[in-house]
């Protein structure tokens, strides 16, 4: 049928806008970088970007169901501390370690999901509380920074592939293909969108509401743990840093918003959130290449974020019944 593309464009508008905005920003950055866009510059940028992008994907899954996960940063920190202890030794031991870290992430997500669904508590409160618990466990595992990680694996995933392509980008692509796309195309994933868009309508349509939410929280935990692993591969150490956890949680929300995912739920995509994360990182890098005082960085990131949120609110100008503004 002709005209399909215009509907597809409409459906993926947020994601496409995020992509275009990122490409524009990154082009400006690359063109003004003193060393030009060489493989090392790209790899460093990619590693930083991918780390936030994975956390943003984790956040997206929960936000789509019109929840919010304030524990993603802490799950990442917990995974980081755990990985710095167990992803060591022989290849088999390291592999088992990776598996254990991922299982812990799944369990963290499952705990969140269980409390939110069956305890009927608000996601925001639940995940603040569980986030504190996860951080406490991380602190118990690693009271002082340290530890080690299997370096061959770490370097392979954070280094460059032949041709100078950052390996981390391939990892991210793999995650999109293996985690996000199947979720997006599954009945459960569709149910997650439905729940976020209109929970009553979803119920009336016989959609598996609880399963959708539970899977969203679990996958969120899994992805956050993957981010923790990746952080360990970049830094070679584990550190129970509350500041780090909180920063990533808040940045992940910023990335989700920049990536065109609606905080009301039901609309947007993890791919958008990935570009949102890249964009958020590029803002910082841009300030660096233009020699802006690092002190100004939060201010500019804040301005860009506010502008993005304002764009999202334009639709409110068309509301004809003022009560709808408060719905």
């Amino acid at each position, binding site marked *: 049928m002709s005209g*399909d593309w215009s509907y597809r464009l409409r*459906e993926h508008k947020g994601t496409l806008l995020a992509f275009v905005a990122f490409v524009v920003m990154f082009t400006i950055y690359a063109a003004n970088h003193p060393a030009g866009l060489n493989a090392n510059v790209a790899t460093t940028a990619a590693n930083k970007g991918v780390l936030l992008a994975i956390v943003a994907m984790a956040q997206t899954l929960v936000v789509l169901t019109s929840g919010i996960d304030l524990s993603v940063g802490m799950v990442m920190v917990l995974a980081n501390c755990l990985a710095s202890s167990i992803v060591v030794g022989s290849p088999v031991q390291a592999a088992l370690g990776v598996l254990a870290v991922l299982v812990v992430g799944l369990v963290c997500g499952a705990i969140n999901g269980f409390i939110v669904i069956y305890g009927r508590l608000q996601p925001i409160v639940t995940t603040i509380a569980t986030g504190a618990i996860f951080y406490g466990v991380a602190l118990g595992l690693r009271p002082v920074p340290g530890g080690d990680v299997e370096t061959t694996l770490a370097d392979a995933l954070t280094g460059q592939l032949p041709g100078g392509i950052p390996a981390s980008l391939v990892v991210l692509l793999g995650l999109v293909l293996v985690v996000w796309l*199947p979720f997006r*195309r599954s009945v459960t994933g569709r149910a997650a*969108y*439905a729940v976020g868009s209109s929970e*009553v*309508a979803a119920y009336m349509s*016989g959609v598996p509401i609880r399963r959708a939410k539970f899977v969203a929280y679990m996958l969120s935990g899994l992805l956050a743990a993957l981010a923790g692993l990746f952080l360990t591969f970049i830094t070679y150490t584990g550190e129970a840093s509350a500041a780090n956890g909180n920063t990533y949680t808040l940045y992940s929300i910023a990335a989700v918003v920049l990536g065109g995912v609606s905080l009301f739920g039901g609309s947007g995509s993890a791919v958008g959130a990935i570009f949102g994360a890249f964009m958020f990182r590029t803002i910082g890098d841009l300030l660096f290449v233009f020699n802006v005082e690092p002190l100004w960085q939060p201010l500019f990131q804040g301005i860009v974020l506010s502008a993005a949120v304002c764009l999202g609110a334009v639709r409110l100008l068309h509301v004809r*019944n003022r009560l709808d503004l408060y719905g």
Partner: protein
Amino acid sequence: MSLFVIEGVSKRYGGVRALQDAGLAIEAGRIHAVLGENGAGKSTLIKIMAGVVAPDEGRMILDGAPVSFPSPAAANAAGIACIFQELSLIPDLTVADNIAISNPPRRFGLIDRGAQRRLAEQALARAGADNIHPLALVKDLSLSRRQMVEIAKALARKPRILILDEATSALTAADVTKIYGVLKRLRAEGLALVYISHRMHEITELADECTVFCNGRSVASYAAGTKTDNEVVEMMIGREYNAVFPPRTAHPASDATPMLAVRNLCWTDRLNDISLRVRAGEVIGLGGLDGQGQRELLLALFGVLRGTTGEVLIDGRPVTIAGPDFAKRKEIGMALIPEDRKTEGLMLPMSVRENLSFAALGRLSRWGVVSASAEREAVERIVRLLAVRTDGTDVPAGSLSGGNQQKLVIGKWLMLAPRILLLNDPTRGIDVGTKQEMYQLLRQLADEGAAILFYSTDYDELVGCCDRVLVMCDGAIGRELVGAEITERALVSSALNLGAQSTTRRVAQTVPT
């Protein structure tokens, strides 16, 4: 043997009986119309059939075997699909996603978009809506188009029984015509259709059998065409009078400037050229079926709606009411008692005192500081005046009974001594005793010089309380009933638009050019 039989079904919501010993028998290849007033129990019956609520008593028999539906999915699986009045579509998903949502076609465990697309196209074509693009987002569609998608969605489940609850109320004339054709074809294919509508001409056109509901009971079933419209209305009314209304004050016909006058008020397609006048001391009722624009009219007067056209005059002077804060100013003195006291009227966790003084804080404070003594005095005066049964004024509003909560909502506005009082179905879900107190209060306020505009879904109330009743239909005032003309019978037949030829005229007008 009937395809589906419901017998002796009862359902209570708290103290309110929604259904009592109701029954219905549905045949394959027939269209069965269900009729009844607002709150007669039709919606509850459908919800039971669709597995949304569980009955307290009674049984359902499908194909001769007893069945029960613990969830909407279970009813679906049994072949019952329901098109609800409140749309069940998910706004952020595409039309195709929505049509396939209950059971999307899958390949290797993932949704097969190609197959889903074909399924959606077929369903849309069957619903006579093949001009809706399957990839369009539902939130971008008009209400009428969404309703067509809703019908396609129900058809995609290949139901044996299709229930349509006011399915045409949001449709444009062009879509209504299509739907008639579709429904007749489905009947010919052997589906059983249950059709709920307030529009008598639709029932005449479509129905094979009819069942009338009244006060939660199924009072009569008959073959279509064997009863006159008047007989049907009689059956729909048939309820006992149990409320006591205060005597009306005689109003000398006066040419005094009306306190509130409206000229040619319009808002989107929901309010259509409304003009009315309310004088001091008058109680004016708004009647008609649910959702004919009464709520929007009250909201428009209170300044909640954007983009209204027409004129509002207070004491003969034109004013533009920009919002509730403007409406409550002394020179206008308007108050709106909202429909949903729990979300729009009260802050349930806050205290009785805080709730009562909220709207009037400006008058109870000096330099922005609330005077505790003035507040206490005013609150206690209202609590006494309305006889609110509460354990002191510091308990949360949510701890009071429904009737007493409603008194708080009214009391909060009485603190401002409003001159113009707009009420949106204020007695819904409250007990008879409180209702009577409410009627006394309305009359007392009117006698003290207030102008009252009163929307109610309870026809008894309109008959008992109002000096005049404006019956609304499709966003316009269809008929005005004055004094002795206000009878339940007149209210019902004018709400159903019987006798007037305006229905057909309106349909003709809305055919798109």
